[in-house]
């Protein structure tokens, strides 16, 4: 019985990693589309986002089944409940990557200018998502804590980008729409950073049983 349960937990773990990998891929693709202005790339993001949604439902069903059939306790229960919370954040990351991709299609091939630090912000966010998934894979609370700290950096980038976009609108008012689109993208990246932080917090919870907000 136990071995079957372990097997099920393993499958859950694998699926979580797969979902995490999909999130990384979605946001990496969105960021690449942003740097190259390649609309075709941006359209691929929605395909991945659909995969992520699908995966979320799969994992949710699996977690429910495990909770009902095995009635897990202690560490196993934490792992499953943390998984249930994490997939919500992962799904949101997928959605936001899709939103970014959608805005990129409105930019009509314009890419993020280097003076606006949106590329750096994207890179930072990607590394946050990667680290949070890594922390889950390795059950590494130190890495998870690093991710939480890292979020401040992304927030800082957002403020900086906001500042330079205000300047851009003031200097070249005809760029107003473009600047606003970039601001939206930056906001989405900032949100993705927050979701990565949430994931990291749940990783810590599943390992130690303590959640930051409790």
């Amino acid at each position, binding site marked *: 019985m136990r071995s079957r349960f372990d097997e099920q937990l*393993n499958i859950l*773990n*694998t699926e979580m*990693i*797969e979902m*995490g*990998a*999909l999130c*990384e*891929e979605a946001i990496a693709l969105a960021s690449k589309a942003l740097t190259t202005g390649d609309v075709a790339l941006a359209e691929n993001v929605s395909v991945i986002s659909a995969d992520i949604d699908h995966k979320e439902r799969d994992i949710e069903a699996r977690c429910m089944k495990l909770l009902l059939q095995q009635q897990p306790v202690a560490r196993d229960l934490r792992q499953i409940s943390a998984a249930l919370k994490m997939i919500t954040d992962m799904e949101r990351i997928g959605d936001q990557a899709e939103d970014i991709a959608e805005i990129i299609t409105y930019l009509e091939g314009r890419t993020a200018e280097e003076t606006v630090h949106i590329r750096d912000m994207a890179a930072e966010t990607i590394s946050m998502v990667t680290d949070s*998934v890594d922390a889950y*894979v*390795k059950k590494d609370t130190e890495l998870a804590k690093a991710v939480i700290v890292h979020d401040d950096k992304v927030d800082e980038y957002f403020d900086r980008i906001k500042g330079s976009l205000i300047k851009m609108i003031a200097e070249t008012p005809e760029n107003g729409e473009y600047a606003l689109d970039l601001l939206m993208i930056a906001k989405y990246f900032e949100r993705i950073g927050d979701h990565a932080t949430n994931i990291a917090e749940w990783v810590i919870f599943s390992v130690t049983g303590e959640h930051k907000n409790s």
Partner: protein
Amino acid sequence: MTSKIFRSIFATSLVVLLATLAIITTFLYDYFTNIQINQLKDELSIASVGTEQSGKEYLEDLKSDNFRLTWVDSDGTVLFDSQADKATMDNHLDREEIAEAFETGKGSSSRHSATLTEKTLYEAALLADGTVLRISVNRLSGLTLLLGMMTPVIIVIIIAVIISAVLAHKMSKRIIEPLNKLDLDNPTENDAYEEIAPLLRRIHKQNMKIERKAAELNRRKDEFELITKNMREGLVLLDKNRNILTINSAATIILGTDEKCVGNEFLTINRRHEITSAIEKALTDGHAEIRVKLVEKEYQFDISRIETDGETVGAVILVFDITEQADAERLRREFTANVSHELKTPLQTITGSAELMENGLVKQEDMPRFVSHIREEATRLVTLVEDIIRLSQLDEQTELPKENVSLYEIANEACGVLRDSADKKDIALTVSGDGGNICGVKHLLFEVIYNLCDNGIKYTPDGGKVEVNIAETEKDVTLTVSDNGIGIAPQHHARIFERFYRVDKSHSKKSGGTGLGLSIVKHSVQYHGGKISIQSEENEGTVITVFLPKDE
């Protein structure tokens, strides 16, 4: 073992007990019945005589508690009964023993009472007057007897259980002890039971076999580990559930993990979609190949399915570092593209000019200009082809004769050739330093200095200066060519030695040159085992230093 022995002992004693009981009971019961019947018969014959002589009075006098007498008339009516009132008794003609007595003179039977607890024995005899006298006695039935013996039997059974348990415990202990003390590592050295000697010999043989196999396996494992450890390629073995079975050190470095990942899923060490889907493809189709960039380096993943008896048991992943190969491929592609472009441009000018002349579209006075165009471009082509030949010679790495040469002299020679073009641009071309004696290939070293100075002159505005300095240290000879020209931005430094690479992307022909000069310099210096360093900023001149080792 104990319980088994207990069961055997208990069962045996129980069976013996019950069998004895049954046999004895049956025998004794039959024996006493016979005695009783004989007694009854005797009594009956005495009573018959008495009754025949004195009738009812005799019977009434003969009151006895031991048996019951019944006198029955020939029509079945009871004339007398010693224990019951004759009036209440019904006709006895149908009773078995009485009927028999009327017929044959003597009758006997036995009947169980309604409750089966008692058995009544009857004997009857026909008297001379035609009546029948019957005598009967009650006795307990066999069943009642048995029931009565129940208590002692149960006590005996309980005693048997206790004795069996104690005996079983002791016996099993005695039997088991030598078995428990068997030394299975050295089975032949035991002297327990003779009966298990063959088993022990067998175990001994098996032990030896296992030891040999284990040694063999260990040796193979060591061999395998030694081989995989020293492989430069990464090697990962997966089972069919994508769990890692083996990973060699090269693979741990490439994938950025450690040996602890063995047993986990491959997904936990790398979750790149390309790789996981390639593994999936290999497991279904048998083979997959992908190129993946991991941390600045390009790797090729060759994944093959492992099958035994047509069943998938896992996959083997081989990882090659193809960074250099990929770079070389890119360079070759660029070179081919560049060389065709560079060769085509002058040829197009030549054919264009020649066509115009052929069709008589060129005025007589323009003729010399066109002809010189053709000549210039042809010369360019020749230089280009010469450069390419030189480079390919250097690529071939053919052994060229080395001699003792003085760099200073070569530098003077090269500058002598370039003096004219330097003068044209009013550039001061100077050579300083001394000696610089090394063992090398003269014309290659000449090319180095010539090309560096030529570049210096080309990329220095009119009135500038180009300085060549030769210096010696303990180990090397340093050749420094510096100018105060337009300089090179740092991001180009790494690439200017590539074939046909130009800082100015427009491939401007203004400055001339083939784009191969620095490439030739690089190869020539490499041929001598030297190094080149460059120091330059845009608009701040360029200093190129060549270090050539003295002793070779």
